């Protein structure tokens, strides 16, 4: 009997596949293609205290093996999310994770306080968005700054707290350890990689913000290495993110030490990607005679 359940910070996921923040909206678009209750979990589009229009200019650029994006956290704001989106999400039988961003520590704290009053299952603190000018990734590069944000949020946060790490951290293991010490119940890694593309005919950067976040299969080997290193160093569950396109990638992350994964770019390539990955994992375990993910977790 195959059992793909996984428990992270006291929250049970029916399988290890979570739709990654910023790639799944608030679930509605995908519900047209498959029952999203199949998902282990869903991390919402990045939420900020106030509504954001996002960035101007080009927002998506394709590279070999990847996509660069500069969406800039376009979202309706926490209050509108709670009223307009959360009732729908809560009606779906899957773990709902609110992904929270802010320009200042105070904004993170107020946002989390508002979410405390809701039925959200978990909070994912985004200290790693590369596409906003203030806050975002600036909290995610130096361990002591990240630690301060997590400490302040932990004081008020009544929900299980995931901290999402940036690959731009000066030292990913040190960053992970600092966040755990400051109160993270779990870690998710990694966010997109800050990257650059240039239009040589216009002789300028493709994106208005010059740099943008790179995701997709091209980042997987680096993200996988970071997940491997961090999961060896900390004693909280690690959620692997980066270039997962099919079930084989998920198995690699689990073998590298991840408890669960987040699937991002693949959702843009195929709206049924998460559903197909979940089926693929079950078939793999069946074929290999493995009954739980624990049997292969961190075997590398």
């Amino acid at each position, binding site marked *: 009997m195959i059992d793909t359940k996984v428990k992270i910070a006291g929250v049970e996921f029916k399988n290890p596949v979570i739709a990654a923040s*910023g*790639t*799944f*909206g608030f679930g509605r*678009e*995908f519900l*047209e*293609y*498959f029952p999203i209750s199949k998902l282990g979990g869903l991390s919402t*589009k990045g939420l900020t205290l106030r509504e954001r*229009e*996002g960035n*101007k200019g*080009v*927002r*998506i*650029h*394709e590279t*070999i*093996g*990847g*996509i660069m*994006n500069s*969406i800039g956290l*376009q979202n309706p704001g926490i209050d509108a999310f709670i009223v307009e989106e959360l009732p729908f999400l809560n009606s779906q039988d899957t773990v709902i994770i609110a992904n929270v961003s802010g320009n200042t520590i105070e904004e993170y704290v107020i946002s989390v306080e508002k979410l405390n009053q809701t039925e959200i299952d978990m909070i994912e603190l985004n200290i790693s968005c590369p596409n906003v000018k203030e806050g975002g990734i600036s909290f995610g590069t130096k361990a002591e700054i990240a630690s301060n944000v997590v400490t302040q949020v932990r004081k008020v946060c009544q929900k299980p707290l995931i901290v999402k790490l940036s690959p731009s951290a000066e030292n990913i293991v040190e960053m992970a350890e600092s966040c755990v010490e400051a109160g993270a119940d779990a870690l998710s890694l990694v966010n997109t990689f800050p990257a650059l593309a240039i239009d040589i005919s216009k002789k300028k950067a493709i994106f208005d913000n010059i740099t943008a976040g790179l995701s*997709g*299969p091209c980042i997987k080997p680096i993200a996988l290495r970071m997940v491997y290193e961090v999961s060896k160093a900390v004693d909280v569950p690690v959620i692997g993110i980066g270039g997962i*396109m099919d079930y084989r990638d998920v198995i690699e992350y689990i073998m590298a030490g991840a408890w669960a994964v987040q699937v991002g*770019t693949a*959702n*843009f*390539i*195929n*709206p*049924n990607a998460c559903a197909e990955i979940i089926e693929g994992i079950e078939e793999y375990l069946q074929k290999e005679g493995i009954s739980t993910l624990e049997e292969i977790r961190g075997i590398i």
Partner: protein
Amino acid sequence: MKEGYREVDISSNTEIAKDIFELKVQLESNDSLGDPGQFYMFRSWDFDPLLSRPFSICNIEGNVVTFLYKIVGRGTNYLSKLKPKDKLKVLGPLGNGFNLNVNGKAALISGGIGIPPMIYLAKKLSTEIYFYAGFTNEVYYMDYVQKYVNKIYITTEDGSTGQKGFITDIFRPEKYDVVFTCGPSPMMKKVVEKCENMIPVFVSMESIMACGMGACLGCSIKTKSGMKRVCKEGPVFEGREVFFDD
């Protein structure tokens, strides 16, 4: 529940002008195969290129859907190599198309590779239609569209067919009750400006998109009622709702 990507047979894939291809695919569906202004995402490859490519419906006859595309990069270059019986993965129809419930004289104004949705629109509208088409040089598909419209106006940038110049140079909005347009953004902006506040004008916007089904927000544009996704709320918008320069 909508179907995700489905594999379909290519019926034909023919170059009809330099770098412009006509692609016909055989689709099976119990639902509508699409309305004018709607589009499909294509991929004939696995993960390289990573993203699918969006194309507007140019025509539907029975179960055969026609698209026109121009070779501009790797994806369209791959598509151009496909032969009849080759397989293509498609997702669609997607987006919101044109409002067909209009009366009086309609002007349909297209430029460049904005022509495909206008062709299907001309076929589906049941009103007087005046078709304006701006080409760079080679003219295509005008013989087909002739039977569905009252008059065709053509411009070419090199003057080889029709009038020399841009199609917006010869468009006279005062003669019409409704205007539809699809083409380069500066062209559509000019059309909307020419219409002032006199007549309804509908634009089919183009934007780089990753998913095509509303998830990535990559194609969002600024409108008078907030940010809107070209792939989901669009691609058709009321022309005066859109901020073309943002």
